[in-house]
């Protein structure tokens, strides 16, 4: 079989540009579906205080606690990378420094997530 028949795959350019774009889409979709659920769970305050407290109690168990870390991780990445996208689009030197800005995003994300994880796990596990 000739080499030319091998599909090129779905990689566009790879590297920081494409992977940050992929991560931005995935985190965006995750956040959107949580938002739908979050408006519904908050709406239970109009059903009864007991109904709201019962559903919110499920957010406090350890497995959901870890899920919340994942959600906040997605939000913080989407937020910082979103600022990077704005800078790429509107700042004259944005396109030139988009790689450096992505690594700044990843670094800031790691710092925020380490701090948040410690605090949130203390709340979830009653430390």
């Amino acid at each position, binding site marked *: 079989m000739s080499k030319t028949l091998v599909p090129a795959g779905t990689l566009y350019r790879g590297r920081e540009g494409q992977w940050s774009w992929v991560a931005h*889409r995935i985190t965006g979709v995750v956040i959107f579906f949580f938002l739908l659920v979050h408006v519904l769970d908050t709406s239970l305050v109009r059903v009864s205080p007991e109904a709201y407290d019962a559903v919110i109690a499920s957010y*406090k168990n350890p497995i959901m606690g870890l899920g919340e870390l994942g959600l906040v991780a997605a939000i913080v990445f989407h*937020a910082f990378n979103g*600022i990077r996208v704005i800078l790429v689009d509107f700042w004259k030197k944005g396109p030139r420094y988009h790689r450096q800005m992505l690594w700044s995003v990843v670094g800031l994300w790691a710092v925020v997530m380490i701090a948040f994880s410690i605090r949130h796990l203390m709340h*979830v596990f009653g430390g």
Partner: protein
Amino acid sequence: MATPTIESPRSGRVSPGYSRSSASRGNFEMIAWLFMRLSGALLVVLIFVHLYVNLVTGDGISAIDFGFVAGKWADPLWQIWDLTMLWLAMLHGTNGIRVIINDYAEKNSTRMWLKGVLYTSTVVIVVLGTLVIFTFDPCPVIDGVAHVADYCSAT
């Protein structure tokens, strides 16, 4: 033999056949693109404060219950805060999903159905959330039984 005149691209006199956008779409996509950046910048502030106040300060998630919500929505600032967050996040998210549907759903009918479901969900969630914020009652009486809390005056 007359030389054909080709107008410069931004002269506004380009023959309609060479125009990239049909007149009916207008500049919706440009407005949507701009909205994503403006709402995104605002949402960073709105959501970071939301997460900080609800999950980081005090006892974080373990302190969240009906009384916590009542305490926040007793202040019009948090009502407006949550209302703005609801509308901007839903529109920002809906437009994001719309773009993703346009990118990956190749059949016209699939795109139409997915976007139909998307827009219906958006309207339901935005209307529901808005009504909840404005009709919230911190001391509800359900089936004749009054909610007991220290901030509810006994009548």
